[in-house]
């Protein structure tokens, strides 16, 4: 079996700060592979262990973070790792990213499964997996919380707004995996030492016949929600009672209770 895992290093938004003008301080924000991406890789590695498969990790971008992401994937157990050399990877359109992954799959394929995370931690559009499925003509299972892979097909449990969907899909398929799907393995020393001599391979957009579309003039600033921010202190029983009385009065005045 051959499996691709598409990974995206993302900003850890819980640590993202802004300057006084509301400009995000991206340079000092830590960048890592997201939880869902690691779960996607873990699913691929589980298949490698149970059924035997070649796992190829790929990312769209050429920054330090992208290279490290692929190296981490190799240390976790991926057989091969590639970066698709595109500058300003965080500023390109979703369709470019999806096309890059799809063309890569065609050029280096064929593949039985494309695993991706269900959504990136920073831009959370969650559309790349579905786009890749449409571009490749592969079947699609999206937002899988649980995946079971057999020789020719996969079963997956997905949670949506209205309930649970249990899918069974034949290969080739794109499966997007949520961060609930498993607990990604932490690379052991032996795995790290084994991956020491593995190279991160590079592939350029020309080799993929890919035209890169960058967003022009994206302006990103802090999202200020107008809120009243009336904060009360309740450090003891007395002040707790007083704050609760005030709060309930405010809410009545607002007309929400």
């Amino acid at each position: 079996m051959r499996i691709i895992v598409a990974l995206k290093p993302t900003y850890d938004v819980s640590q993202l700060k802004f300057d006084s003008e509301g400009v995000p301080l991206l340079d000092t924000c830590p960048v890592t592979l997201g939880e869902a991406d690691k779960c996607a890789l873990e699913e691929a590695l589980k298949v490698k262990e149970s059924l035997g498969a070649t796992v190829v990790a790929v990312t769209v971008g050429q920054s330090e973070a992208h290279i490290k992401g692929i190296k981490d994937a190799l240390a976790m157990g991926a057989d091969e790792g590639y970066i698709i050399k595109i500058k300003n990877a965080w500023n390109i359109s979703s369709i470019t990213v999806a096309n890059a992954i799809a063309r890569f799959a065609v050029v280096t394929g064929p593949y039985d499964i494309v695993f991706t995370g269900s959504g990136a931690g920073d831009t959370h559009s969650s559309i790349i997996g579905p786009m890749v499925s449409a571009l490749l003509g592969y079947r699609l299972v999206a937002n899988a919380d649980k995946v079971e892979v057999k020789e020719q097909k996969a079963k997956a449990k997905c949670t949506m707004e209205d309930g649970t969907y249990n899918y069974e899909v034949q290969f080739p398929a794109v499966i997007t995996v949520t961060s609930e799907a498993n607990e990604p393995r932490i690379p052991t020393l032996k795995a790290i030492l084994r991956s020491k001599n593995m190279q991160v391979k590079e592939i350029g957009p020309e080799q993929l016949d890919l035209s890169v579309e960058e967003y022009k003039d994206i302006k990103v600033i802090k999202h200020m929600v107008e809120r009243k921010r009336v904060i009360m202190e309740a450090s003891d029983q007395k002040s707790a009672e007083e704050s609760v009385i005030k709060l309930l009065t405010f809410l009545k005045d607002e007309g929400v209770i």
Partner: protein
Amino acid sequence: MNYEFSEEEKRFRESVEEFCKRYIEPRWVEIDEKGHIPLDLIKRLGEQGLFAIPVPEKYGGMGGNMTLAAIAVEEIAYHDPAVAVAVYTLLQNGWPLALSIFGSEAAKQEILPKVASGDAFFGIGSTEPQGGSDVAGIKTVAKRSGNKWVINGEKAYISGVREMSELPEGGGYFLVSKTEKAEWGHKNITDFVLLPKWHGKMSEKVKPTVYDEIGRHGISTGGFKIEDFEVDDEFRIGEINKGFYYVMEGFNIARVLVAAATIGSARWALDKGTEWIRERKLFQGKPIASFQGVNFRFAELYAELEAAKYFVYRAAWMVDNTYLTNSPRFKPRDLDVPVALAKMKGPETATRIYEEVLKWLGAYGYTKESNVYRGWLGTFSYTIGAEGSQNIMRYVIAREVIGKEYVSHTG
């Protein structure tokens, strides 16, 4: 000199950090409070490959080295400042390495894979009720009887006594014993692998007791009486009467990791302290970090911690270049001073850092809620001694640098 860790070393440190954040950080306070490292955590540490790091793969080890072991122990201590888990881990790295250097093929094959997997414990059994630093003065005796040895004696202040009896396989010690007669001296000591519990069965000839300590509660300290315990000659470690020298080399190995644990815990304390002095505001909104009395002291402690860190990794590098390389650059005796420096500086720097951080925290630091006192008590145990008392470290440095003819144990 290369002052940077290699990419693999950095990646390994990250993987240990990830492991600690997931499995140790959420539980370290409970481990210290309840006085118990859960067996499932020990198994996980084994499964993650954090035991027997420097032991060759053919004995079930990770085929790594002491630098990697020190990285693992340091990071674990950062996430378990009370150091119980870090100490458990360092023992499962240092003494298995010593066994893999000095032990018989049979003993290594029998014991090491089970230690690596987290099913068995292996530690050091040297200290006795009447003395620890005075190894030449031990009284436990091993008498030869055909192809066995019969051992009688008592050990005290030994780590892991309870863990050994709780783990499914069991475990034991690198035991230091007198050959035939208990006379003071360096040339009549033989070492053995003593397994009070093995294959799940506890021997009746070894009677352990566990002490109630003031800190580092997660890992047990205790003692045991040995009554006519029979050990196969193939579990003798090395040559008869050379045991003193083997255990001294073993102590050198373990001491590096002890120092690594103390600097990991101290780094946690200093990080906590840094956060606190930035946030704590007094005298009309001034952060206490802006007071020179505080920030000058911070700078001094930061410098000491950095220095202690370099001692640790330099000593680890030297151990690697003595035992774990095809072309050794150093002899075992060359390790005495570098290791003593690390083991002297590490715990003492940690103690000084904890004292100062507790002062910055003020009355809050004195409360159990702050948890900082747990690291203070944990690292302080290594200022008292363990794998080598602080005064013995001074003795070693003085003896080696000034000269043996000027410096004696007792003078």
